[in-house]
């Protein structure tokens, strides 16, 4: 298992760097060229969301991106350190900022529309979005 780890301070200008690095590593790992646009967009969405969560929560810690190359798949994990308020339907209105929640959902909507294999976990000490794509090693293509 080969891994590239990227950590960047929660600034919007670094999201582009994360997209470029992720696409480069994905290409090297054997992710189909046609899917690279989706990888770029999905990782950008996940990073933008993490940057937003860190900025609104006043969190100084960096956003973490793990690019994990495995035998037949390539995964990207974008981790944030924001406390995710778990809100129940019965919560008082205004418990969660609605505009922020909407933006958050738009990003997640794009990710889930793009990526078939995506897992979102969130808790008191941070959240993680894990996205996985299949890879085709050159030897398999020749068969």
């Amino acid at each position: 298992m080969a891994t590239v780890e990227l950590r960047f301070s929660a600034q919007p200008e670094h999201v582009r760097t994360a997209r470029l690095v992720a696409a480069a590593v994905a290409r090297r790992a054997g992710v189909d060229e046609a899917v690279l646009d989706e990888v770029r967009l999905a990782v950008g969405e996940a990073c933008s969301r993490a940057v937003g969560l860190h900025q609104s929560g006043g969190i100084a810690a960096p956003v973490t991106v793990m690019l994990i190359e495995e035998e037949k798949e390539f995964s990207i994990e974008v981790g944030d350190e924001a406390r995710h308020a778990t809100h129940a339907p019965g919560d008082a209105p205004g418990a969660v900022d609605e505009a922020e929640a909407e933006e958050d959902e738009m990003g997640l909507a794009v990710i889930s529309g793009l990526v078939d294999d995506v897992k979102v976990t969130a808790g008191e000490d941070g959240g993680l979005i894990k996205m996985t794509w299949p890879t085709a090693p050159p030897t398999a293509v020749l068969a």
Partner: protein
Amino acid sequence: MDLSLSTRTVGDRTVVEVGGEIDVYTAPKLREQLVELVNDGNFHLVVDMEGVDFLDSTGLGVLVGGLKRVRAHEGSLRLVCNQERILKIFRITGLTKVFPIHTSVDEAVAATD
């Protein structure tokens, strides 16, 4: 690549030509441009996205915000886009039903529906 913006007037429409990448970093510039145009009384906008290489949900949010602003003045916001990679984002978010999307600036400028 950064974001490039230029505007020109065609009849009663204002064409905003956008180039480069619209993401969480550059989207605020596009938002400012749209807000300024509406504040100056330009309520019929055509956003030409043919030069856009990348668009994310932040950019979509700005376009939706622009649409809300012009609609408050009974205006319109039309998009020009032929790029499949960009159109796909509008489709998966259901925004193809919200924005009229044209294949050329001429077509968008002539549209009246």
